[in-house]
């Protein structure tokens, strides 16, 4: 065992000294996660995932001011007051996801101005439609809440009645008889609201607005909270690809540089020599995953709540790639041949496995194909162990597939290697 450890430590030192190989193992995955995480609208800097909007209050009524205050207090929004022109420009330049204008008459019409004056105006950055749709939901629910609150206060509800009476009296299209019925109803309502004990009135069943925040996909706690949560598991697999190719090359290098011969004349058995290489690859894979997790956790708020599940996913994924490494090392006799063909195979697996385009945007046939890619299963295991919050049982299928894949590749690789050597 000591011999195997000595071998593994030597390999880790060699990998560490090989700055080019190290870039593919560590540098590239970090760049990948951070770059694509931020490009795909990762965390908006504050990590809260809030949609930024420019708000223009041209109405300046009690109602519009309360509306503004409610939007500003929403966790899902980050509100910046601007003039109409400033807001339009900010959306055009992509600094704000959307602009919301409360025009003159907004308070008068209670936000339901529609095509007439007083209606809420929204302008959305076309590249951020999803956030725009979500914003519309929030605006709806805020309006609804405010109206509900008014009706739930008998005194404030009575304030509307004179306006309503005037509307009915002045509307020529309402027949006289109907007008009388409506006015009698308003009188009765006015008397009812004035006489009733407010406590009893409010204890009745309250109107419920649509709970936009609870149903929105992006706020669903079971979904990714940021693009970083999607990108870091993928980056981990990129790191594993770098490790796998690096160690496959180092195994051939031992043969081409003659050091394998020297290892074989040492007291170590052939199995121990391969075990040493495998252990080094396993440790490097695990270290890469742990480093990316730490980076994602502390800088980008990646969720990570179940350490045992993570340990299981990490062990199975790393083991699978040790097996793949053994098989890849048999793809040629020279470092160049093995390096080239290893990356070709890994990139192919990565392409169908979701390392380049995420699995959920793939067409169905390609999603089915991705079941044959260990990289796809690795991403699933790593997602399960991080933001998806899988239990050990939920992780079992992915881990099983990974172990099986690793075992098959390992056996094949070792069989071919020992054929080469005699």
């Amino acid at each position, binding site marked *: 065992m000591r011999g195997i450890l000595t071998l593994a430590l030597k390999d880790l030192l060699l990998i560490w000294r090989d700055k080019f190989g190290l870039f593919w193992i560590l540098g590239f995955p970090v760049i990948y996660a951070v770059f694509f995480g931020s490009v795909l609208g990762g965390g908006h800097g504050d990590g809260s995932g809030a949609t930024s909007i420019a708000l223009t209050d041209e109405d300046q009524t009690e109602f519009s001011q309360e509306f503004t205050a409610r939007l500003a207090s929403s966790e899902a929004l980050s509100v910046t007051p601007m003039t109409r022109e400033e807001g339009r420009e900010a959306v055009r330049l992509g600094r704000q996801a959307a602009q919301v204008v409360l025009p003159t008459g907004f308070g008068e019409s209670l936000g339901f101005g529609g095509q007439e004056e007083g209606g809420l105006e929204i302008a959305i950055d076309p590249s951020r439609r999803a956030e725009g749709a979500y914003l519309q939901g929030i605006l709806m629910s805020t309006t609804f809440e405010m109206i509900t609150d008014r009706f739930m206060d008998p005194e404030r509800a009575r304030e509307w009645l004179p306006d309503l009476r005037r509307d009915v009296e002045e509307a020529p299209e309402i027949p006289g008889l109907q007008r009388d019925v409506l006015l009698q109803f308003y009188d009765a309502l006015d008397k009812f609201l004035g006489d009733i004990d407010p406590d009893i009135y409010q204890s009745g069943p309250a109107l419920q607005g649509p709970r936009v925040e609870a149903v929105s996909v992006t706020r669903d706690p079971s979904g990714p909270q940021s693009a970083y949560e999607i990108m870091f598991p993928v980056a981990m697999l990129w790191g594993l690809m770098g490790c796998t190719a690096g160690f496959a090359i180092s195994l051939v290098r031992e043969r081409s*540089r003659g050091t394998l011969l020297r290892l074989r004349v040492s007291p170590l058995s052939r199995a121990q020599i391969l075990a040493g290489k495998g252990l080094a690859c396993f440790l490097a894979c695990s270290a890469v995953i742990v480093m990316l997790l730490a980076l994602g956790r502390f800088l980008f708020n990646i969720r990570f709540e179940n350490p045992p599940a993570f340990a299981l996913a990490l062990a199975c994924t790393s083991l699978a790639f040790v097996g793949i490494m053994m098989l890849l090392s048999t793809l040629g006799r020279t470092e160049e041949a093995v390096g080239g063909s290893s990356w070709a195979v890994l990139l192919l697996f990565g392409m169908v496995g979701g390392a380049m385009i995420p699995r959920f945007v793939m067409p169905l046939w390609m999603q089915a194909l991705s079941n044959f890619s260990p990289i796809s299963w690795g991403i699933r295991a790593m997602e399960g162990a991080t933001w998806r919050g899988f239990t050990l049982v939920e992780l079992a299928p992915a881990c099983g597939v990974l172990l099986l894949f690793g075992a098959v590749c390992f056996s094949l690789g070792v069989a071919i290697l020992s054929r080469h050597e005699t």
Partner: protein
Amino acid sequence: MIRVQDLRKHYGPIRAVDGISFEIERGETFGLLGPNGAGKTTTIHMIAGILPPDAGSVEINGSSDPTRASVRSQLGVAPQALALYEELTGEENLAFFGRLHGLRGATLRGRVQWALEFAELTERRRSLVKTYSGGMKRRLNLAIALIHEPPALLLDEPTVGVDPQSRNHIFGRIEDLRRRGLTVLYTTHYMEEAQRLCDRVAIMDHGKMLDVGTVDELISRHGGVSVIEAELERPPESTVSLPGTLEGTSLRIETTKPLEEVARLAELGVRITALKVHRPDLETVFLALTGRRLRD
């Protein structure tokens, strides 16, 4: 110490080693001399237990299975192709292979220091091997084979691609090891090396061993006569009967005992201005045995 009996290995139609037998005594330096492709490396690999022979047996210090770690650890092997980690320093290479042989702590440090001095690399011990010269790499390659103090050494062409100074250094080191009583198997295609370093030499070609013996034995068996060429001061008086053939003042003598002939000339009172003795060497032996020169 090392006994090889009827060893055979072929690669397809190529008979790399074709029935070789020899025995190396403890403390002896034994040379395998032959051109490239003769089968020297293949023989060494079979002795070291990393290449299974098709037939024949290898015995090391009385044990017959060199694939066993305990048997292998009695050998130190310096491969023909430099077997070094270029991205490690000389010191790290030595320490790594020392650890593989189970050395630890103070023992390991002591051995690494010894090996660095042996290879004259103490000053460069913290430099990466890739920055070493060819000669330095060769010396390190040899030193690693010695890190675990094996009683027997297998050296496969240890001076290939080395400048004359490093070559002399390596010769000196191997002579040291001889004096210390190590058993050495030394392969080479340079006949001067075999002649200088080896107690006994086996001549190899096309996987076969053509003859084995001390250098003198081989020369007297296959080297034929020595040739003496002497330039005389003046033509000899007719009363003196000289050996060999005389043309003017140039005398040429073919003999198996050149030193005795030269002594006889001196006794006869012949004054000589120039003298050349062409002794047969292993090159001549190889030519006689194969009809080819050692290096083409």
